[in-house]
């Protein structure tokens, strides 16, 4: 019965894995992108749900021309940008108090990593939008070919934008 349900879900979602599998595999990607674009925790929860809804609605249209990660990454990033545009307030940047899970060598290392991650998060949020898009995709481990396809940039333009984005990120990190 479970196998039949899984198969039906697969058919319903155009050949993509079932939605709960996608949430397990790509949920952290979605959560991290939501965190970059929305600092307010309550609004971030709204944004995450909107991204999940868009992914659920978009899955039947996925035709494997791009990888599922690319497809979901695009939806998440674009939904985040449109969410920020629709919010009737100034961009809100706050300190994030995210707990660290998993085994870490020492408590001091955990604090240092948490701090460095928070600094990276804060710095990425301060980047101009086009550079932030690019850096987010780099941090998420997309290849340059995938990024070029997602951002519709030729290799030369991608290289130039990446150089600018890295320089800006370095400057912001050093200041912080």
């Amino acid at each position, binding site marked *: 019965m479970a196998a039949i349900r899984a198969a039906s879900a697969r058919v319903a979602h155009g050949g993509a894995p079932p939605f709960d599998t996608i*949430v397990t595999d790509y949920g952290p990607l979605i959560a991290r992108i939501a965190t970059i674009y929305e600092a307010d925790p309550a609004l971030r929860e709204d944004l995450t*749900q909107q991204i999940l809804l868009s992914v659920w609605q978009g899955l039947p249209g996925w035709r494997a021309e791009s990888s599922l990660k690319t497809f979901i990454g695009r939806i998440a990033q*674009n939904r985040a940008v449109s969410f920020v545009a629709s919010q009737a307030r100034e961009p809100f940047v706050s300190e994030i108090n995210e707990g660290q899970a998993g085994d870490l060598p020492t408590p001091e290392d955990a604090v240092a990593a948490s701090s460095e991650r928070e600094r990276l998060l804060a710095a990425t949020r301060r980047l101009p939008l086009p550079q932030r898009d690019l850096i987010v995709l780099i941090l998420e481990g997309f290849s340059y070919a995938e990024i070029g396809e997602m951002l*519709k940039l030729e290799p030369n*333009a991608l290289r130039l934008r990446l150089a600018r984005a890295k320089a800006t990120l370095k400057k912001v990190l050093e200041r912080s």
Partner: protein
Amino acid sequence: MTDPDLERLSQMWREEPDPEMMTGLRRSAAKVARRARLAQIADVGGAIAVSMFVLVLVYLNSDTNTVITGAGAIFILWYSHVRQRRLREVEMRSLTGSTEEMLVQSFERVEATVKRARLGLMLLPFGVLTGFLFAFALDRAGGDPLRAPGRSDLVVAAGIIGLVVLIAYLIRSIKHGRSELDRLNSMRAAYLHERQQIGPS
């Protein structure tokens, strides 16, 4: 910043997710999927139910006017349904394209919404006046010209409240739409500035 630096930051960025976060995310996802499925069923099911209801009414009161009105109502219902579906497909395509393309489409969509709200606000007085004239014409045989037979003060009061709420909603839509357009414009300007810095792609 070298590529190894970015690689190190990337590894740190993508560290093992917090299990509590994942539990919350799975719960949200299940809720979203459940609501989306119900909304889909209600959307199509509602349109079918209303169509059946109109067909039954037409069958029970079949004359030319009823048939034409019923056919018109069913046509408008399904046209609206198909149009909503097409708009959702367009929105989904823009979400899977580049951010710049998405911003252009969002701008056009919000601009159209603001224009429709402004038009609604401008036409509202004419609509109200037309309604009063229509009521007057129906009741010109006698009685209070502004009161059709059987209409109570309560209905008139509800109509006025409804009108006030509609006006407030349209004004709020226009204000919200305008600030969203400003933000979309500044986002588009940021991309244009970036393209100008690096040259054409």
